[in-house]
């Protein structure tokens, strides 16, 4: 069965050729120092102690900013496609699962919050924390027998925009204050980053839940 699906064909031959090329190239990649050195050097001005967070929110903060924008745009795109169907018959079933999920949710919320906070100095950060919070929200949706009522549309939109907005506001403020676009004054860097992280985490969590729901809420009261 499997063989028939991936039968010998021009496509397969081309894939194999590409695989061969890639393997040869990848095994031959020269050793190069990467950016570990520059990152380590700049860490004392980064405002946070954890390199990955420093890269995400400071050195390459613009990437992260646009990434939040991607998330938000994904929700908007889905909303533009129409209203959502109700979530179909629970994929997760049985009382045991529900019970487990319900107990997991508070743990996940705490974990998520902790991850956001700890991101400044250790593994963790807005995305991981937000993701765990979002996953918790999704689990909640899955575990409830009926759909959870969502907050009003305006609040949803506000929450959704929070991360991008915080980033944009801080970035623009930096521009106006003479630190350049996306620039933080070193003294405030830690607090600004933490603020952005919090806003981003809320947005990410909400966005993931909204992505999961798929489509605008079914109440006709909002929008249009």
């Amino acid at each position, binding site marked *: 069965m499997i063989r028939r*699906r*991936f039968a010998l*064909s021009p*496509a*397969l031959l081309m*894939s*194999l050729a*590409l*695989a061969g090329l*890639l*393997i040869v190239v*990848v*095994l031959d*990649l020269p*050793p*190069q*120092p*990467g*950016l*570990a*050195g520059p*990152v*380590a050097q700049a860490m004392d001005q980064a405002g946070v102690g954890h*390199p*990955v967070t*420093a*890269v*995400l929110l400071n*050195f*390459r903060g613009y*990437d*992260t900013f646009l*990434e939040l924008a*991607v*998330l938000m*745009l*994904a929700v908007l*795109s*889905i909303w533009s*496609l*129409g209203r959502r*169907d109700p979530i179909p018959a629970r994929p997760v079933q049985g009382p045991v699962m529900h019970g487990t999920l319900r107990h997991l949710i508070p743990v996940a919320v705490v974990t998520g919050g902790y991850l956001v906070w700890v991101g400044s100095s250790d593994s963790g950060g807005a*995305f*991981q924390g937000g993701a765990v919070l979002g996953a918790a929200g999704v689990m909640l949706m899955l575990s409830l027998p009926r759909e959870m009522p969502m907050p009003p549309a305006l609040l949803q939109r506000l929450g959704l925009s929070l991360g991008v907005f915080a980033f944009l506001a801080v970035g623009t403020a930096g521009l106006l204050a003479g630190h350049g676009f996306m620039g933080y004054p070193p003294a405030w860097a830690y607090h600004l980053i933490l603020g952005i992280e919090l806003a981003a985490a809320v947005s*990410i969590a909400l966005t*993931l839940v909204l*992505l*999961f729901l*798929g*489509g605008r809420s079914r109440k006709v009261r909002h929008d249009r």
Partner: protein
Amino acid sequence: MTVDVISPQIYLLCGVLLFVLGLHALVVRRHLLLKILAVNIMGSGVFMLLLGVAARGEGGIDPVPHALVITGIVVAVSATAVALVLMLKVKAATGLARLPLSGPED
């Protein structure tokens, strides 16, 4: 020290193969859900390549690819979510979760 040298190589190879596997499935498989999964597998392959490169670095672990991959994962989930909703809309509109072979002349 051998682990430091050999393990990343293993993952580099694995990443490349995942990428090609996903690419092939994306071209060959016709169900939209599988196509979407295939894209995700391709992405995972690239992420693995990036992290393999980071682990192999001379000056210690390189945090930049880590940040890139986190960004990439978020972008991937966004695209996947949109693709899934679109798939459902296509299914509702055409009754098929596949793409018609030739473009409809609307």
